[in-house]
């Protein structure tokens, strides 16, 4: 909406832009990693079911990139495909590879990691979306209402997998616990707004980092309790903060793959 753009103060616009990039890049990378699983899930029915979640998530990323496009930041496709790694604002958690090996060869993807990352991430997304529905930036609040509709299924899906695998064999429990540890190591920037914390929080765009963390823990508690476990602690400070453009080699590789064709000719129509 061009009229909205006109009335935004430069500081407010910068805060909105920063938050939108965080949300967009998160879902974009989360979906990308999910899409690498396509055809390789442990069970055919699950392959089909989880692909829908990857598609929904890419759909959500597209909504955010389009909001950025509306703010005059450039074409949504350019924003998704061409921004260099140091400009990316996704959480490090979403960029991590699914496991050892290149997807074109015979990768050894870890389903326990997929389940834990997806469940923890989706719960984090859910508390953010709940807050974003009251965002001071109306287009974002409207998008959040839409995204929320699809999160019920994502939550049910990953919660079911999480609980069932942790209630099954010793081998599965071990793998799941290893995965929880791995995921939590990268959880420090999931609720971080990076250096834009003050700007994002003071403009009423979304609740504070601390409030969202508490909500996440509160929502997770009954699920962990039901399987006799405790909610793991979120690291105080992130090892690397993706919100500030601090990323791993995994993201560099992902970006070069996902933009390989697009970069052949970014002005062509594909």
């Amino acid at each position: 909406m061009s009229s909205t753009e006109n009335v935004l103060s430069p500081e407010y616009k910068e805060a909105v832009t920063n938050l939108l990039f965080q949300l967009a890049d998160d879902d974009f990378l989360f979906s990308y990693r999910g899409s690498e699983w396509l055809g390789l899930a442990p069970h055919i029915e699950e392959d089909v079911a989880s692909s829908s979640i990857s598609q929904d998530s890419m759909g959500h990323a597209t909504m955010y990139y389009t909001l950025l496009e509306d703010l005059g930041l450039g074409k949504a496709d350019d924003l998704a495909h061409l921004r260099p790694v140091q400009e990316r604002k996704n959480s490090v958690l979403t960029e991590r590879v699914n496991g050892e090996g290149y997807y074109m060869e015979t990768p050894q993807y870890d389903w326990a990691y997929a389940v834990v990352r997806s469940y923890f991430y989706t719960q984090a997304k859910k508390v953010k979306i709940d807050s974003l529905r009251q965002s001071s930036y109306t287009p974002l609040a409207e998008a959040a209402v839409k995204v929320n509709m699809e999160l019920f299924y994502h939550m049910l899906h990953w919660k079911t997998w999480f609980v069932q695998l942790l209630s099954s064999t010793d081998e599965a429990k071990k793998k799941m616990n290893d995965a929880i540890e791995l995921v939590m190591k990268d959880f420090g920037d999931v609720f971080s707004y990076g250096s834009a914390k003050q700007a994002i929080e003071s403009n009423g765009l979304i609740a504070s980092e601390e409030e969202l963390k508490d909500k996440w823990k509160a929502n997770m508690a009954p699920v962990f309790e039901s399987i006799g476990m405790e909610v793991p602690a979120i690291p105080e400070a992130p090892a690397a903060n993706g919100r500030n453009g601090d990323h791993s080699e995994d993201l560099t590789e992902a970006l070069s793959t996902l933009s390989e064709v697009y970069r052949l000719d970014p002005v062509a129509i594909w």
Partner: protein
Amino acid sequence: MSNLSTMTEEEKLEQFVQRIEAGDKIEADDWMPEEYRMALVKLISMHGISEIMGALPEKEWVPKAPSLHRKLGIMAKVQDEMGHGQLLLRVAEDLLKPYGKNRGDLMQDLFKGDLKFHNVFHMETKTWADAGLVGWLVDGAAIITQTNMLGASYGPYARALQRICAEEVFHAQHGEAIIMALAEGTDEQKAMIQDALNRWWEALLMFFGPASKDTTGTSKQDVTIKYKIRTKTNEQLRQDFFDKYIPRILSLGLTIPDSTMHYDEENKTWVYEQPDWSEFKKIIKNQGPRSQARLNLRRSSYENNAWVRDALAATVN
């Protein structure tokens, strides 16, 4: 009508043939002659596993798809391939019950090389144009063969095909959209499609199978026609494909990589150069360009995830 339990095998067969002739649908629990069950098992397990293997060549282009819209479209398309595999393998699994075999056994048959998958899915998908061409022409070819079986005498297969063909329409349009964008694009983009067509042409001809068993030694087309699983021969289907697609390919300014190709008005058939059928035999014996790589990927992901299936087995209630 006589009591089934007192009927001789001959009487059962006679009744079965009458039902098929009358256009009746056979269901999973119905009596059926062994030859019919075996023909269905071969056809449908091969069809189902081909969908599962067919997800892999296109899956390679999922992360690389060149826009958000294309990324979404190709994800949905590959998801459908897995979904078609699911529908078809369920049909095959029910037919396999008398032999005590299930999906796990089918996967093992695939790994051992006993269960084949379609020749096209042994090929390399080298560029983004291949991803489009697969949707447009491979799925186009699949639509021709599958719609030919929509009236199949076996009810569960016919019903699965109804669903599958409806979704294939989306696949074909997804492929057409990619190809159309390239055809209307830069010179490099146009060259990409021509290159893809050149590399895929033989595989597309082979997709329909040999015209008769004289070509390759075996053909299952006779028994499937006899039992009204399908109506047209391999060659008729290939000709149908030419009818529908040759004009479309040419209209986009592409060249058919067969200089002998022409329509014989008198015989109302397309005349074309036969693909190398000895190559076809090699490919379906898993000696195609990407056969082993794709089988390895399927096997390693299946084995790598075995602990998940074991874990779920512990939750059976």
